[in-house]
């Protein structure tokens, strides 16, 4: 142990704020990066799952006739 | 048409050398630019205005200006080249001439080299010619002005060549201009450092031959590598559009 006491360890002879600020920012940013990466992976798996379920739903319904453009005018009611 | 009566195709036989193709590209770019002479002045005006901002914004004192002058001129030149890069491929892309350029049966990097040369003649070279006037205005001494012009002469083609890569990469993107600057400015730093450093060394009376040789090496490197990178980037951007 390079320090005599815990308080000396925290103070680091006056350099404590600099050292601890560095370590804090390092660990917070790394944690955010790691958690964010994990979360976006989970979100991707979820969105894939939703996509497949949506597909499965669609294939259950009798395949609707492909929509063809008619360029029919739309009636907009005016009150 | 029946298979029996099918005709045979005749393959094209005549061809054009790469040099003639480069000449064609160069001539067209020059012609287009001179049909729109007003646009040629814009980077120059920008150059002058940026230089003007420094005495106004920092200090008009002779001691400051003569020390910072080379840096000011270099930064201003760099910015005005950057400003003009967006047009390097943009108009060609919009009107379809770029497609036809890529489809020429010629090595694409040579055609890009021709285009970049034209771009330099239209933006970089005028800046070099204008530099002595502005050098006098920021109180550089005669020797420094001469060295500055030399570094600009060697350095601005490097700016155009590296810029061509960025212009090709950002072709057809939203806010391509800003993105182009983001990509390219870090790559411009060595040229800027040696451009201004050479002038500073000259002002201290050191010999500048070695520095100029180094900048020449940058130019050779950019000439040999940048057109290939720009060609690859151009194909990717066209494939996307």
């Amino acid at each position, binding site marked *: 142990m390079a320090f005599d006491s815990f308080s000396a360890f925290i103070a680091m002879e006056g350099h404590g704020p600099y050292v601890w600020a560095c370590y804090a*920012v390092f660990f917070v940013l790394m944690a955010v990066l790691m958690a964010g990466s994990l979360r976006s*992976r989970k979100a991707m798996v979820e969105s894939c799952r939703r996509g497949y379920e949506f597909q499965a739903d669609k294939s259950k319904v009798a395949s609707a006739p492909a929509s063809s453009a008619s360029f029919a005018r739309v009636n907009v009611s005016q009150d | 048409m029946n298979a029996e009566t099918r005709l045979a195709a005749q393959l094209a036989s005549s061809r054009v050398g790469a040099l003639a193709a480069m000449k064609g590209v160069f001539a067209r770019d020059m012609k287009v630019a001179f049909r729109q002479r007003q646009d040629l002045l814009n980077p120059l005006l920008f150059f002058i205005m940026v230089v003007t901002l420094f005495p106004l914004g920092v200090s008009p004192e002779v001691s400051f200006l003569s020390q910072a002058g080379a840096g000011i001129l270099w930064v201003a030149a760099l910015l005005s080249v950057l400003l003009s890069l967006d047009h390097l491929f943009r108009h060609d892309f919009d009107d379809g001439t770029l497609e036809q350029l890529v489809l020429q049966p010629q090595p694409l990097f040579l055609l890009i080299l021709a285009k970049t040369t034209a771009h330099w003649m239209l933006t970089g070279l005028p800046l070099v010619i204008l530099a002595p006037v502005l050098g006098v205005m920021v109180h550089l001494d005669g020797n420094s002005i001469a060295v500055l012009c030399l570094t600009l002469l060697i350095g601005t083609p490097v700016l155009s060549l590296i810029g061509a890569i960025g212009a090709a990469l950002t072709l057809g993107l939203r806010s391509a201009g800003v993105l182009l600057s983001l990509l390219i400015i870090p790559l411009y730093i060595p040229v800027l450092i040696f451009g201004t450093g050479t002038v500073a060394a000259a002002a201290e009376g050191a010999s500048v031959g070695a520095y100029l040789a180094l900048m020449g090496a940058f130019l050779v490197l950019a000439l040999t590598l940048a057109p290939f990178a720009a060609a690859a980037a151009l194909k990717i951007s066209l494939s996307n559009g």
Partner: protein
Amino acid sequence: MWQIFHKLGSPKWFFGISTRFMPWLLAGGVLLLMAGVVWGLAFAPKDYLQGNSYRIIFIHVPTAFMAQSVYIMMASAALVTLVWRMKLADVFVKAVAPVGLVLTFLALFTGSVWGKPTWGTWWIWDARLTSMLILLFLYGGVIALDRAINDEKSAARAVAVLVVVGVVNIPIIKYSVDWWNTLHQPATFKLTEKPSMPAEMWVPLLLSVLGLYLIFGWLACVRMQTEILSREQRTRWVKEFVLKGRV
């Protein structure tokens, strides 16, 4: 030989193998990093010149080292993308660029904070910090370009060109920044170049570098898997994985 190469390039194969390795990477990385950091913070002797502020070195050097090696790794992968069009290589470049950005930022931040007790100022235009700042710009450019191009494949290839161009420039930038630095202010003090570092200092340093390397490996795997899932959504194996949870 080529079969192995292509197998290595297969996203499915990578997905399976990386899933198996990831827990080990994470556990080993965290363990090593913590060991290095605790040792460095509490047990390593005080530096006779800088006092305790030098303890920042145990995260500054790993992040700075990783920031640079990540770019080199990206450039190698980018070259593979351009030459062989290996699918995994461009996935790697895309997945890893933000990690590189964060690491570069951390290196800059810790370097700058370290500067305050050492030089008495938050920022100094020292060659290392300046090179690191330029590296940050390069990472920023790569990410900006990747975000700006809609089509995934075009984005991957455009980014690959940019990264390769950048890596050609890195030695030039480094050299010119060093030269510029000597021109303007003769270097009086270097952050990490000590005449001889005692083992009690460099062993924890080595541990934290290794630890961060492993954590980077884990991060790369997680982010690459995300990217692979997004790209290969329509393949059968992804569907099977998502619905049944195995590759």
